[in-house]
């Protein structure tokens, strides 16, 4: 279970998170939505322990990770995986080396076993036989799939996705959404997706958390989100800007 309690974070005079409280149950597919620059990625970085809060706590399976040292965090992160917005592939390594990185560093498998596991994981993300390609040879969608394969190769129980469909065309976005859903179903993992793409909310989500002004404004199911008549939620879901409001 992931629990966030009273989380505050400021960068200079910019107060990005102003008391975030939320709970994500084990095995749940949670979507965190909010406007661009609203602090979604900052919240994700707190949950994964990549940055520390000014105030508040983050609990992963009951352990408060908000002020742990990096080496203690590494132990907690063994059970987690993150797919980054820009995929964050290691550009000096081939696709196969990227995907097999965790297992290679762990040193528990032979190179033959790692190769087999890499091939299986690439097959899961529909990239069969791409081991020898380089990240620079891949399209945006393929990079995200490789990033996903690299993240899930060690069978983590929690997978985080930071804007998985950002910058992709609708068809590729749809395939990524279905892939996330498929992995969620096959591996029974807790899934946390940061997005402002409403198609992702429909395809992947079981529960939606809406972040507004640095706080969780709404916790609902996707159906409740889309049916909401709350002006803030309605405008966000339907993509209505304040300028349209003024014009009308």
């Amino acid at each position, binding site marked *: 279970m992931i629990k966030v309690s009273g989380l505050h974070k400021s960068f200079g005079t910019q107060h990005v998170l102003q008391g975030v409280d939320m709970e994500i149950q084990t095995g749940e597919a949670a979507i965190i939505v909010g406007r661009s620059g609203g602090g979604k990625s900052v919240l994700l970085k707190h949950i994964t322990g*990549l940055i520390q809060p000014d105030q508040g706590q983050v609990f992963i399976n009951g352990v408060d990770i908000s002020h742990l040292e990096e*080496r203690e965090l*590494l132990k907690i*992160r063994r059970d987690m995986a*993150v797919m980054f917005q820009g995929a*964050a*592939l290691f550009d000096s390594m081939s696709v196969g080396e990227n995907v097999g*990185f965790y297992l290679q*560093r*762990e040193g528990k498998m032979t190179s033959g076993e790692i190769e087999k596991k890499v091939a299986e994981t690439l097959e899961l993300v529909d990239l069969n036989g791409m081991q020898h390609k380089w990240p620079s040879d891949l399209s945006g969608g393929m990079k995200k799939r490789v990033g996903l394969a690299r993240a899930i190769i060690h069978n983590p129980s929690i997978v985080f996705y930071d804007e998985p469909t950002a910058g992709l065309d609708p068809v590729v976005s749809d395939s990524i959404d279905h892939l996330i859903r498929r992995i969620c179903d096959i591996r029974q993992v807790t899934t946390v997706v940061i997005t402002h793409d409403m198609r992702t909310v429909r395809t992947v989500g079981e529960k939606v958390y809406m972040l507004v002004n640095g706080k969780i404004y709404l916790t609902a199911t996707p159906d409740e989100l889309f049916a909401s008549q709350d002006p803030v939620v309605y405008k966000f879901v339907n993509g209505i800007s304040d300028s349209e409001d003024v014009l009308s």
Partner: protein
Amino acid sequence: MLLGLKQVWGLLLEVVYALVHGSWKVSDIVAQIYQIGVRSQSVVMVTGAFTGLVLTAQTYFQFHKFGMDTLTLAVNSVAMCSELGPVLAALMVAGRVGAAMAAELGTMRVSEQIDALRTLNTHPVDYLVLPRVAATTIAMPVLVCEAVAVGIFGGYALGVYALGIDPIYSWANMVNMTHVKDLMTGIIKGFFFGGLISFTGCYKGLFCKNGAQGVGEATTDTVVISSIGILMLNFCLTLILSKIL
């Protein structure tokens, strides 16, 4: 300033901790020794050769006025071993290796590759910093020896075959006046310079600001800080080692 010192101290402690308890691999250090040491050899040897040549020529022009020709190679040898060899080799490595480290780690930082490492059960210091610092401190003394050897033999060739210095007396004077402590001074300096260059490059890369400008600044800062640091550290080490050795 205070934050910078705190970061430097923190990274230094992390490197020491990683050396003792970290999950670093010998293969990572060997790979870095190839990148840093083997691939810097040509640059360092060319530097050593021309430094030896010009030092021999200048020394000969002055000593010849007083009939001290056969002491030329001794001056070249002592200067190359204890001062010019280590300092000039280190300055070349700072430009080639230190800048590359800062650029590589800086790019990894701004493209979230270092965050990705942290989520893949890998401490950046174990995987990125320690192998580079260890490889540079191991490779640098060897590079210094190469620069010194090429500089001395370059100077000898110039002195004997082009300037007509007597080879027997020159060789005897050179061997008599160059002591093991001169070479040891150079090797020890190389060890410290290697640590300084790699630590500066890694620190600047890991803590660089976002964007291409941040990476550019980190690269420039690494070369400037390393170069000035080498000259200052060289002075301190000369005084300290002259007492110890």
